[in-house]
């Protein structure tokens, strides 16, 4: 129980904080989303559901929706299998180097999947992909062994970059699982298969499912991979269709409305997914908390030990190392299409994009400043809002809790469309075509990360600390400053980096909002690739990868120190 609300002076502070928190969430997140819902059903001056349904029935819309579902389902199933298998392998078997592998399997988290898609296009496009060409030239294949421009290709690339969502959840569950459960089954005479089927799988199922749903949520609303690999063969999903319509229309209302309807579909599916995830987590969570630090028994792979290890290394090499190498190599070519021989390779493109080419220099500058500003603002706003949600007992908190859930469930392209509706002049403020609109969208998009990190940190601070301070005569402000703030600093730092790094490679939101002057790194890579400046776009992708990996190093270093 916090005592502060009983005192008159702090009553004001509490109310101000609450009011500010609600205001931020309403302005940044709720208002744009409401505008989308409103525009999806409001035609001229009345609600018209029939019109909305007729738009949904148009072949293009319907097909985009189906594509989103098909691609998301294939990616989800694939990532779940891959992620669960590797998680089991590194936590429950005696495979060598499992710690190293565990960290390698998390690397795809850092890599932007649209850069991966560009790399895989170069490796597996049907006629010119390096791997396809290699097989056709050396083994007499008539056609490509794999065509990346297909549903399978798109899903395969998404799986490569999304499976860590499941991997990380399942690893955690397997490590936390109480081994006595399995041991008692074994003592009672159950075989390995029975134990796996009856004990292990049911116990980790909630984690697998919640990871799978995260992937589903992400993939439904994912722009980059589908845009890079799908458009040429007429495969497009909801975010790609929204982007294409908005960009071709020059801001006509019809396309905005179509976008709003599609965005509504995304919001609804996201809501269903989130609801399902909560349901699963609430039923399954308690079962796996063991608390005791027994090491679970490890399965001896015996003869399979070395082959499995080689398989893991091959997977890592194939999905992580190979695409990265290709990006850097193509970035070094003088023009795309030349063979990778020393005379064709140089650092000229890298020099050009860093020092001479305004588009890329601006893009790097824009992304770094946008990411930094968004991270700082979101970090502070996040700690304030989480404080109200976690610690304060004030009236009206329920609204805030609901609002605080919103950023988690609104996909990027929906946020982008929402800020276009909200901030392009209809309500007095016109930010369209400026960096500010991207900043607003970033804040809305990344608020969820900040809320998560900060509320986790705040939950660990016991109320008695603040109460003790207040009992000794500190004002509320003093207790906040001297007790709470120092203790949540690690959470705030984590929030900062959780926002700063992803925003450096952000594409889904910025592609909808950029103007020629306000390209971000992601947009520059994407548009340069689309414009046929393939080598330049790869060089920029290479630089982006370097910045991201260095940033990750800094995080790991400091988060260890800060004990996050």
């Amino acid at each position, binding site marked *: 129980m916090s005592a502060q609300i009983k005192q008159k002076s702090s009553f004001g502070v509490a109310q101000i904080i609450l009011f500010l928190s609600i205001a931020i969430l309403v302005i940044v997140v709720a208002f744009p989303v409401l505008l989308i819902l409103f525009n999806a059903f409001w035609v001229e001056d009345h609600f018209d559901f029939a019109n909305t349904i007729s738009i949904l029935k148009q072949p293009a819309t319907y097909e985009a929706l189906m594509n989103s579902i098909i691609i998301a389902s294939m990616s989800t199933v694939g990532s779940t299998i891959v992620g669960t298998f590797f998680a089991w392998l590194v936590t429950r078997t005696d495979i060598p180097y499992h710690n190293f592998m565990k960290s390698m399997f998390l690397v795809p988290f850092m890599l932007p999947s649209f850069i991966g898609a560009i790399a895989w296009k*170069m490796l597996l*496009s*049907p006629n*010119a992909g390096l791997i396809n*060409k290699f097989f056709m030239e050396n083994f007499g294949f008539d056609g490509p062994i794999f065509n990346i421009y297909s549903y399978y290709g798109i899903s395969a690339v998404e799986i490569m970059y999304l499976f860590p969502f499941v991997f990380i959840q399942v690893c955690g569950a397997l490590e936390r699982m109480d081994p006595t459960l399995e041991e008692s089954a074994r003592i009672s005479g159950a075989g390995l298969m029975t134990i796996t089927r009856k004990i292990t799988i049911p116990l980790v199922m909630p984690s697998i499912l919640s990871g799978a749903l995260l992937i589903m949520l992400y993939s439904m609303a994912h722009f980059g991979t589908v845009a890079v690999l799908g*458009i*040429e063969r*007429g495969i497009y999903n909801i975010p790609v269709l929204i982007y*294409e319509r908005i*960009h*071709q*229309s*020059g*801001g006509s209302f019809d396309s905005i409305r179509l976008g709003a309807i599609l965005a509504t579909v995304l919001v609804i599916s996201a809501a269903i997914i989130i609801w399902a995830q909560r349901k699963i987590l609430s039923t399954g969570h308690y079962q796996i908390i063991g608390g005791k630090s027994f090491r679970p028994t490890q399965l001896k792979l015996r003869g399979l030990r070395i082959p499995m290890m080689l398989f893991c290394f091959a997977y890592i090499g194939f999905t992580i190392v190979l695409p990265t190498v290709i990006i850097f190599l193509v970035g070094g070519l*003088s*023009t*795309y*299409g*030349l063979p990778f021989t020393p005379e064709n390779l140089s650092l000229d493109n890298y020099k050009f994009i860093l*020092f*001479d*080419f*305004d*588009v890329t*220099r*601006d893009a*790097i*500058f*824009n992304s*770094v*400043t946008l990411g*930094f500003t968004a991270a700082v603002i979101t970090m502070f706003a996040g700690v304030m809002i989480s404080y109200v949600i976690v610690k304060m007992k004030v009236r009206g908190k329920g609204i805030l809790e609901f609002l605080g859930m919103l950023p988690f469930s609104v996909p990027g392209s929906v946020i982008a469309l929402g800020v276009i509706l909200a901030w*392009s*002049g209809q309500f007095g403020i*016109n930010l*369209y*075509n*400026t*960096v500010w609109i991207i900043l607003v969208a970033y804040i809305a998009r990344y608020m969820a990360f900040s809320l998560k990190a900060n509320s986790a940190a705040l939950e660990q601070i016991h109320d008695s600390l603040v109460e003790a301070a207040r009992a000794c005569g500190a004002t509320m402000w003093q207790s906040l400053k001297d007790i709470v703030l*120092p203790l949540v*600093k*690690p959470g705030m*730092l984590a929030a*900062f980096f959780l926002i700063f790094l992803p925003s450096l490679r952000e594409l889904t939101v910025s592609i909808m909002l950029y*103007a*020629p*002057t*306000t390209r971000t790194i992601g947009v520059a890579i994407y*548009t340069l*690739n*689309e*414009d*046929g*400046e*393939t080598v330049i776009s790869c060089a920029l992708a290479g630089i982006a990868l370097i*910045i991201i990996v260095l940033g990750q190093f*800094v995080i790991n270093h*400091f988060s260890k*120190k*800060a004990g996050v």
Partner: protein
Amino acid sequence: MRKKGIMLIMAVVMSLLTVVLSGCGGGPKQASSGSGSGAGASSGGAAGGNKLVIYTSMKESLIGGIVEGFKKKNPGIEVDYQSAGAGKLMAKIAAERQSGKILADVIWTSEVPDFYNMKNEKILEPYTPSNIKELLNPFDDYDGTFTAARLGTLGVIINTDKIKEDPTKWSDIYTKPEYKNGFGIADPALSGTSYMSVALLQSKYGWEYFDKLHEAGARIGKGSGQVIDDTSVGELTACLGVDYITNSKIAKGAHLKLCYMTEPNALLMVPSPVAIFKGTPHLDAAKKFVDYLLSAEAQQKVADAGTVPVRTDVKQDPKHGLPKPEDALKNGIKVKYTEILPEKENTIKKFTEIIGKK
């Protein structure tokens, strides 16, 4: 301890910022493309808004040199340009008009119908360049609202490793086996030149031409540059490509060749008009830029970049294999621009339906 950690992180972030910032300021400050918050602040000396802004669909290899030359001639005028696809620029202009102020002073793209549209909407400032007599003019109804500054051409770009024999007729694309399943056309919704070429080919050969291309497995690519890169790498064997983009890649060693069909009056010639926006605060500077763009000096740069100028008195490098300006004008497929104008959306839709059919 924790404080130190934060300070360190801040230091790292700040130094990262400084590196990028100094990277921005370090290079020669050619055409600082006013990056939103960033370069706007760093433009320092010039009083805000005292900059000529050009929107163009010409790529860096063409516009960069011209702007530099103009600045050398007019040291008092600051210039800023935005290079992007014509469709994206028009979308930006539409948004800017809604907010009440077009940020560009000059526009130079290859999407002729857009210029007729803007003329009808009366947002262009008529200006007849002082050197008009020396220029080739592709527009019958010329009235000074916009002036062609380049006679861009498109040819069939072949990958020289895959196709040995130059195509000579438009029908080669669907009769000869080497083009089967390997011919690409940029998405007309993204690229103005691609849209214009589709309209030109359709007016000359009808939609049957595209039906036959579809039967021969022709594909829709993305931007006008990407189809050329796809041809260069061998994903496509040939494509419809813009002259100077191809020439700049050939100059860097790409195994490509730009081929023109030898049939009479079958050249894809797409003029790139330049125009000044009405109400620009930099009218004098804008007029100076248009004059410069049409001068022998700038047109020489146009020719050197590998495309066709609007003046007959500039030297064309034979390595580019381009037609002479007067021939480009004479042999170009003739259409009434005002007639194809209202058809734009339908043309794109029909084209996408035919070629994209599964």
